[in-house]
């Protein structure tokens, strides 16, 4: 099953490489990885999506928790949560396709953020499934470049991941 694990990490040089290294060292899989500072300058928030059975996920969270630089950790998929990813896509927009792309962008509630005579740059946010669906819809038109941030997430309701 796919899991979204969110981590508060010491904002120290080398901390990220310990997390990433752990995954390769122990043969765990990383689907997406997203990391940025938080409101507390001493902490980064890192979100990783990974796939594995219960035993593997248990090992992943235990080993992550063992890292000295990992301050707090939550498996968001254990509860209700919000999952978002941002994607920028350059798609071909020539002739009849120009309108077609525009319509699809509207259907997906995406935005065109840059325009040239031959292409659109589209910005879209949503869960990974929505982004995948958008790419599928655009494939016949011609996708030129894709930049995805990787999944970020947060628990629904009163639950807060903090110190």
């Amino acid at each position, binding site marked *: 099953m796919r899991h979204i694990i969110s981590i508060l990490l010491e904002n120290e040089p080398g901390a990220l490489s310990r997390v990433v*290294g752990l995954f390769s060292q122990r043969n765990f899989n990383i689907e997406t990885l997203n990391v940025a500072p938080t409101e507390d300058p001493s902490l980064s928030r890192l979100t990783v999506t990974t796939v594995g059975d219960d035993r593997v996920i248990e090992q992943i969270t235990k080993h992550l928790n063992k890292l000295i630089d990992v301050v707090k950790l939550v498996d968001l998929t254990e509860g209700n949560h919000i999952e978002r990813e941002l994607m920028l896509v350059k798609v071909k927009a020539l002739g009849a396709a120009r309108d077609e792309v525009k319509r699809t962008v509207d259907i997906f509630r995406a935005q065109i953020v840059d325009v040239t005579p031959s292409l659109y740059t589209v910005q879209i946010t949503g869960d990974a499934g929505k982004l995948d669906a958008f790419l599928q819809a655009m494939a016949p038109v011609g996708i030129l470049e894709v930049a995805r941030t990787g999944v970020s997430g947060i628990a629904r309701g009163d639950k807060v991941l903090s110190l």
Partner: protein
Amino acid sequence: MELLSGADMIARFLQDEGIEYIYGYPGGAALHIYDALFRQDKVKHILVRHEQAATHAADGYARASGKAGCVLVTSGPGATNAVTGIATAYMDSIPMVVLCGQVASHLIGEDAFQETDIVGVTRPIVKHSFSIRHPSEIPEVLKKAFYLASTGRPGPVVVDIPKDMTAPTERYEYVYPKKVKLRSYNPVTRGHTGQIKKAVEMMLKAKRPVFYTGGGVVTGKASEGLTDLVKQLGYPITTTLMGIGAYPQSDRQCLGWLGMHGSYESNMAMHHADLIIAIGARFDDRVTNNTSKFCPTAKIIHVDVDPSSISKTVRADVPIVGPASSVINEMISLVQGHNVAHPEALTEWWEKIDGWRADREGKLYEPSKPGEALKPQEVIEALCRVTRGEAYVTTDVGQHQMFAAQYYKFDKPNRLITSGGLGTMGFGFPAAMGIKQNYPDDDVVCVTGEGSFQMMMQELSTCKQYGVGVKIVNLNNASLGMVRQWQDLNYKSRHAHSYMESLPDFHMLIEAYGFTAITVNTLDELEPALERAFADKHELVFLDVKVDPFEHVYPMQVPLGAMRDMLLSKTERT
């Protein structure tokens, strides 16, 4: 207020931390630190002849004493030479702090002379690592390093120290930090009481219980408690290689050790058990054999201070995260005043175990006949007699290691010092050196093989410099015996590069360093040679014992089989 340079802070911190010996080797990036060590006399620096030996010596000391060992190396090749020793300590959860010199901060990343990203290189084999970014951090970082290395599940910690951090011209305030603040590290101090109660209920109701305990009991200093608990219940106990001695092996309840080359009765008892009480052991592949066939009828209680060890390879029915000592003590108080539920089943269980014991009695190996080469097992049995089972025994890796563990009887923890997890040839001799320096009045013997000894034999020079009186018993089978055994069993005896064709004359080699060497060829020479070797506690003596090169280590579990599937000799199997 005291102002000190970074280098002086390091020397001063080591004094304040109570470090007596530091093992190391100098070089450019570490020279400020070396100068600071030179100008004091409380911390004694031992100059090894290879950085790997420094780590093994500190490791040996740490295993024997339960305190963190300390190492100092220079950048680049000094640090990379230490890598094998760091990995060895990591795999066996040994507390160690390794101080590595590094090129000056402004050169980092420029491929400067002797620059290696040692924090990067060692990342998967350390508990944690630090890079010093300002000299004023040194006391706090070192305190954290020692604290992390020696608490929770212990392990090695690397501290990378760029040369400019130790410059004599820059001075900062030094205060020895008495406390450590680490917001993300709080090792558990006790297990969950509800889980412990549940475990004890199962223990009292068991019909075929076995204790299976490991290195965690030794490093967790829980041997006494374990012995009490096991004696109170009257249950059989088997230990891992790393757990040997945590329960006295001469006691009837001890079945020896288990796994690939464990005793027949240990492996049989594990296979037939209905309850396994695992404490400080990690169900590794050298113990479990094929996990899908592992102990088919047993429920499993697993106590470990490291939650990631629990249910890693074998699912625990009752997981208990906590230090062995406090969990065991709680178990003792819960067991007290209660009787086991099925005494008659336990009597039957012991009858079965005694039957397995009797099956193999007197058949473990064939003693040598007059005129034939000595059997390595005979040598270890004689060594155990001569040292009354009280020596610190370090080993290298190979057949001799297994024979030492099988035929020396250990009644105390921390006495068998062996590289179990990584299996590092070259470990034994420097480890013995580290122990002997700290326990000069005890017998310290390294049981080695001619292959392993040649990996670290340069340390003879260190022993000469510091007058270290270790004893070395070289089980010389003129081959990489363990490799050869596998080739006999799996490659139709094609001995690809397991034969040592050009061995040195060990006698002359040892004498070149000014030490005593004794060559032993026959059984009647053996005991007198051992008596002679151990006559003077402070003299290094090397016994070159010529043993049967065709001997195999048995029992040996059959690959992919269950615990009970074993070869018992060249011709028998279960």
